[in-house]
């Protein structure tokens, strides 16, 4: 029973990360109809930059804000320089470009910082809370992670539904041509969408790095799990991304706990394929039949 509770708590904490990265993927998908396979690599890069800031003497919170800032800039640059050219072409070109970017960023990180994973500090204690005489698998840092994810998700929600900028972003995403005719600078909105997604990813990176360690390839599983979560929730649905993240986090946690960590990616594959077979548009999508 304790194991089940521990696994559940662990799943919630991991699920928050998968959910927020899935949210970044959904953001980009809604705006530009592209799956950003380089999302994991981009958040790895910003986490490395943040780590460099800490090594340079910056305090933790400054480095976190720095990471998000770098994310915003990197996201904007990627959209302007690379993605802009493939936004309107066949979807396969965009897939290949983001894959090329993934390969490039991971190689670049390997070159600059070597492939040996390094540690990244946590904001709060990683020691599990004590309930009576047992220590559960949920630490103050986990509370921080779940809390941050909830706050960021809520802020994004407010941005999109309550502000004029958010309205313009949504208009550009749903109907770019009509939005242009209403004076919305659609290109700028796409750049902003990518910047926001990269910024969110950067935050996820610094939140999860203490447990996964920081290496060029340590965030690859996060991309995979976040993708499965996004597809499960529906690539069009931000709420779906968060819920999907939670579900994937829980499923993977139970599988890892009862069957072994090595089976986690296989479980993610199973979730992905089941979703694509049974309900391709995802749990929360307004079942508009989309070609998968």
């Amino acid at each position, binding site marked *: 029973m304790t194991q089940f509770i521990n696994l559940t708590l662990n799943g919630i904490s991991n699920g928050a990360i998968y959910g927020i990265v899935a949210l970044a993927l959904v953001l980009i998908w809604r705006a530009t109809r592209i799956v950003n396979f380089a999302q994991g690599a981009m958040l790895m890069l910003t986490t490395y930059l943040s780590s460099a800031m800490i090594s340079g003497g910056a305090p933790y919170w400054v480095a976190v804000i720095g990471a998000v800032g770098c994310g915003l800039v990197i996201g904007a640059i990627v959209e302007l320089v690379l993605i802009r050219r493939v936004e309107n072409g066949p979807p396969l070109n965009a897939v290949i470009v983001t894959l090329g970017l993934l390969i490039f960023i991971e190689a670049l990180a390997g070159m600059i910082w070597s492939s040996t994973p390094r540690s990244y500090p946590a904001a709060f204690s990683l020691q599990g809370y004590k309930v009576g005489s047992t220590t559960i698998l949920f630490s103050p840092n986990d509370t921080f992670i779940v809390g941050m994810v909830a706050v960021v998700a809520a802020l994004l929600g407010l941005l999109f539904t309550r502000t*004029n900028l958010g309205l313009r972003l949504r*208009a550009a995403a*749903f109907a770019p041509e*009509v*939005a242009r*005719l*209403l*004076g*919305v*600078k659609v290109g700028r909105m796409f750049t902003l969408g990518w910047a926001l997604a990269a910024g969110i990813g950067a935050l996820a990176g610094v939140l999860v790095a203490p447990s996964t360690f920081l290496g060029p390839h340590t965030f690859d599983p996060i991309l995979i799990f976040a993708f499965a979560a996004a597809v499960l929730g529906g690539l069009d649905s931000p709420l779906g991304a968060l819920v999907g993240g939670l579900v994937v986090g829980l499923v993977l946690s139970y599988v890892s706990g009862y069957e072994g960590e090595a089976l986690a990616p296989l479980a993610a594959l199973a979730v992905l394929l089941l979703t694509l077979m049974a309900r391709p548009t995802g749990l929360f999508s307004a079942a508009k039949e989309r070609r998968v």
Partner: protein
Amino acid sequence: MLRVSGLTCDYGPVRALSGVDLELGEGQITAVLGANGAGKTTLLRTLSGLVRPTQGSIQFEGHELTRLRVEQIVSLGLVHVPEGRGVIAELTVEENLRLGALVRGGDGGSLADAYALFPPLERRRRQAAASLSGGERQMLSLARALLAKPRLLLLDEPSLGLAPKVVAELMATVKELAAQQRIAVLLVEQNARSALSIADRAVVLHLGKVVAKASAAELLADQGLLHHYLGY
């Protein structure tokens, strides 16, 4: 206020518009008629900047539009309501309207005025635009355009798919608004009679060329012309 000269537009090897000349005065309603493929929609898309012309010039209130971007053209007061109405289905009625008001920054019309003009919209203000009927969508797109304080309104087949009674109401509304708010209107229609019933002048396009330019009354009277180019 609008002067189009020698407008030519190619889609690859296909010439969609060929040397189109057009003039519009303030508050005038001009109907643009023609069969399918005549170039009517291309004309509007070229005016609003979605398509770049191969040749020619578009003078609007002293600005040369062929060199401007779509967003700049819109902010000058040229508002294009596209084919199919361009209602953003995923947003609510109110959000669609807000987008219209945002075109002019803070100077857009007020939503209250829009609701006063089109009461059905107020009843459905928080519903997704996808749930609106054809006639209501037309109201929405028109209201949204008006909130952008246009000087020139481009309407692409507003009567498409609407019942005759609704079309009649729509045309009456357009005429009233054009007169009240001194808005020039370029009205593209396949339904020639309803367009001509409110227009001051008319232009007939055929295979990208202007084949007739006259006052609406003259054109209504010329059965031969209407029959030849429009099929009835």
